[in-house]
């Protein structure tokens, strides 16, 4: 497991907080019990689809806003600088069973949530006046959190899956500024691509 970035820890705390818990989500816990923080709503899949559609609908705008804020060479070298070449990105099989798809979705959303947290943190430092970008990043992160909660609810309530192994996005805190910009751009390019697939799959 990679080093958790500063943006990852608060996210996990919010998502998985419960009395006595302060550590990140355990991976492959033994004897895990399915206990959600809030009662799951009845129309979970509908909400998941709606959230995916919402994220898919705003992904391109977020991507454009991001690479525009980074300055040249990003807007004119999207294929090379912002291509969806993200290593360790969780896979997704659209033809799998709902349970498998939900598990994979959970991994992807968790990955994206942490990566987006890193991007938001970096951009607040690198582009402190890009308020529109910050706002969109925050809104996307909020929706991802909601989606993650709903997916977990669904997994828990229907498939009794309490915990899923997750991988997190690359930590950018030690990178130089150009790398931060590039990694963020690649991540958002991947985010845009994968959201289109996910919105179709559900």
């Amino acid at each position, binding site marked *: 497991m990679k080093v958790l970035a500063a943006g990852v820890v608060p996210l996990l705390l919010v998502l998985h907080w419960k009395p006595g818990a302060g550590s990140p989500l355990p991976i492959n816990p033994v004897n895990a019990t399915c206990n959600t923080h809030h009662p799951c709503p009845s129309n979970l899949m509908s909400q998941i689809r709606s959230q995916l559609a919402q994220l898919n609908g705003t992904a391109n705008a977020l991507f454009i806003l991001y690479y525009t804020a980074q300055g040249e060479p990003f807007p004119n070298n999207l294929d*090379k600088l912002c291509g969806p070449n993200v290593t360790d990105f969780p896979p997704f099989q659209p033809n799998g069973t709902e349970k498998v798809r939900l598990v994979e979705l959970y991994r992807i959303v968790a990955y994206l949530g942490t990566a987006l947290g890193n991007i938001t943190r970096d951009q607040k430092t690198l582009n402190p006046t890009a308020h529109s970008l910050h706002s969109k990043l925050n809104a996307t992160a909020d929706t991802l959190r909601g989606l993650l909660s709903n997916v977990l609810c669904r997994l828990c309530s229907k498939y009794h899956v309490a915990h899923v192994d997750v991988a997190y996005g690359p930590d950018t805190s030690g990178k130089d500024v150009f790398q931060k910009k590039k990694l963020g751009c690649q991540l958002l390019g991947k985010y845009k691509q994968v959201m289109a697939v996910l919105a179709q799959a559900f």
Partner: protein
Amino acid sequence: MALFAVLQTTFLLTLLPLRTYQSEVLSEPLPLTPESLKVSINSTKQCLHLQWTVHNLDYHQELKMVFQIQISRFKASNVIWMGNYSTTVKRNQVLHWSWESELPLECAIHFVRMRTMVDDARIPAPRFWSNWSSWEKADAQNSLGDHPLYVFPKDKLVEEGSDVTICYISRNHQDNISCYLEDELTYGKQLDQNVWAFKLKNVSFHRKTGTNFYCKGQGVPEGVVLFVSKVLEEPKDFSCETRDLKTVTCTWDPGSDTGLIQLPSYTLFESFSGKKTLCKHRNRCDWQVTQDSQEVYNFTLVAENYFRKRSVSILFNLIHGVHPLAPYNLFPKSVSATNATMSWKVSSIGHNSALLCQLQLLGEGKVIQQHNISVRVNGEYLLSELKPDTEYVARVHCAYADHFWKWSELISQNFTTAEAAPSEAPDVWRDVTFVSGHPTVTLFWKPLSKVHTNGKILFYNVVVENLDEPSSLEVLSVPAPANSTKVTLNRSSYQIYVTAHNSVGPSPASAVAISGHPENENVEEGRVNGTEDGFHMSWKPQSRNATGYVVEWCDDPQNLPCVLQWKNLGPTNTGTVISSDAFRPGVRYDFRIYEISAKGMAHLLEKKAGYLKELAPSYNPEVATINLTSHSFTLSWKDYSTESQTGFIQGYYVYLKSKTGEKCHREFEKTVLPDNSVGCKYTIDNPDQKTFVVKDLQPESVYEFFVTPYTSAGEGPLDDFTKVTTPDDYSHILTHIILPMIFCVLVVTITCYLKSQWLKDKCYPDIPDPYKSSVLSLIKFKENPHITIMNVNDCVPDAIEVVNKPEGSKIQFIGTRKSPTETKGTKPVYLDLLPTEKNYSGPGPCICFENFTYNQAASDLGYCGHFPVTPQAPHCQLGPLTSPENLLKTLEQNYMNSLGEIPAGEANLNYVSQLASPMSGDKESPPANPPEPALCSEYKMQMAIPLGLASPAPSKNSSLSSTALLDPSEHCH
């Protein structure tokens, strides 16, 4: 002696180590080679950090040494820098030295070596360099990964205007890599097989978030971000103050932003106490005063960023820099009409320190009172000499009383004084008119000025006192803001008092005396000239007992009703200047000057009229032309008012032009008109003359005239000329003869029209009375003894027509004029009593069938075929009533009437009126051919015609004929 021996021994023992030292160190130069040389890389600062020791020094030995350092790049032999470093070296001391590389250290392997030489004055020359140390290698590329492209330095922070070198390392030698600063291609220099360097000179600030420098080849572009900082400025206007003797606040102007996300730091040092504090703001810093009663502070502000450090200092005396906090809670404690007590509080300073507060009173934006008050905690001051019902602003600020340095911020509070009774009587004037002998007085008064109202005027009281009946008082209350009222009086003397009232009470009364008798208006009107200042007017006093004068006028006399204006003048005045913003050029103003008697009565003294500035007349009179004769005409413009013009009308110009362009008439002068035409001009210099006779004109000639008034400013506008044509000399005769004649003809025509029926009955009745026929008179005249008149009652129908044709064609047949051949096929069988055209052979007597009632042939043919009469040939001369037109019209009418009475399809017996015209089949459309002379035969007087003249012989179908046998000698020719 023993003591001497002891001292000598001690001295020798003391010298012994020195000697030993000298023999060991100074006597022979030692090879002091630097050892344990280590080279490390600081990528952030791009520095090679060297660390070494000199082992050969003795214990406690301390020498000044010079180290010569060589730095090579890529290979040891490529020395790029060599320099000396001097320092004092102790035994086993670890020495440090750094070298900042212009080229990012990641882009090249560096080699370092050094040698040393003692440079101490205690070591005599000659001095020798030691041997070089071995080359130490500094290779940052070892830590790089396996990416194909690297760009350095990462996140470099540079100051604007400086130079920076950027390099890239490419793993792929075949790749063609281009590098850009933002979007501008940058050219570099190849340093090694796979290393290129780009020297950016005089870099400029792009944006706070850094400047991208990137390189791209076939693979993923790589880049770095340069953070360019503006040069840190020295803080300006550095000053300190205290507001409460507890905290010192220093402020400064930091200058322009360095443009980096990382702001420069500001630190405040105080040298006397040796304390410092890190400032939380970039332009302000607070320093807590301690209890050690330090009064003087030596502050130094240090601004620092990555590149620079700037500092400014100030010597600050705490007592001399007190800037008190603003007072608070300022409010009017008590307010009357003329006084107000203001109260406020101040923040305490130190121990029982007093503040000097300044209370200012502002009225209408200006400071009208200013008072200084010493205050410790609560301030209070009584403001007097205020005006009633007036809004004031009170404001206060304070300063440190012991040592004034700066006023605190001002605080202000509005308040309004209470009302008081109006302090002055209203200025009243009157206008007296007499209606049915009773005076009607319109009282006018001017609103009191703000200074005198002392509150809001609610109403005006008008008290009318009849001086002849002292007990009679009439009181009127006129609500504000009215400024006039009307009072109808009797023929008595009156005294009228007017007072203005506000919520507190009335003003002093203003009195006006009315005599009750008409004033003497027969005062000659004078003129007054206007100037830029107004109207300068003077008058002659009539009475020595005058108490004053009043000049009245209307500001806008063109708009009624007049808003009366007046000006009161003292008894010593015999002139004044009347000015008003309402005065306009070109407007006549009438002034009336009154003398006020001792009893308060006003007597009209003079009347004056004037213009602020006379203008040329704005319009011309409408001129009527009267008394037009062949030689003269009169122009009249009596409706033109001279009073309401834009200047005093001095007269008129009459312009006259004739088509013939002849010479000007007497009294006219030739002039060139504004339209460059030539005309004649006559000047009337009497403004009251509004008629003018133009004489000596030519008959039947066209003249054009134009009348315009003139004032001192010029004449009226040029209008169109009016044309007048003089009649000829005989036109009156024509008028006197032709018009009556036309009248008479019209009367006769109308009479004839009205009496047409009577005339018709009289002259050409529908059924002529043979006995009344004029023919009879002719016959009688010829005294023909054989003449007889056919008795109508004896008439026997002469033919009965049996119609065999279809019913529908009957009317058409009658109504359509057709040729005999056309009608042949449908011609009914009848007894033809008339000769046909065929039967006619040559000229012969005109034989007419007098009664057509039963003559179908005549009806069919439509013309008198048996009348071979040429247009020249006279035809039936049956008198004036037998003219073809008249007859035809009458016949047509009756014929159609008769047709209309016959139901179609019912009448097999075709009755033909004796008045039927064969030509008038269609009443609406006139006949295509005008009636030929033969058509006159359609109507014939019923008279006896000699039988022998009637030809041809009746056909075998004919049965009876009603034709009377006439005298053979009686026929038309």
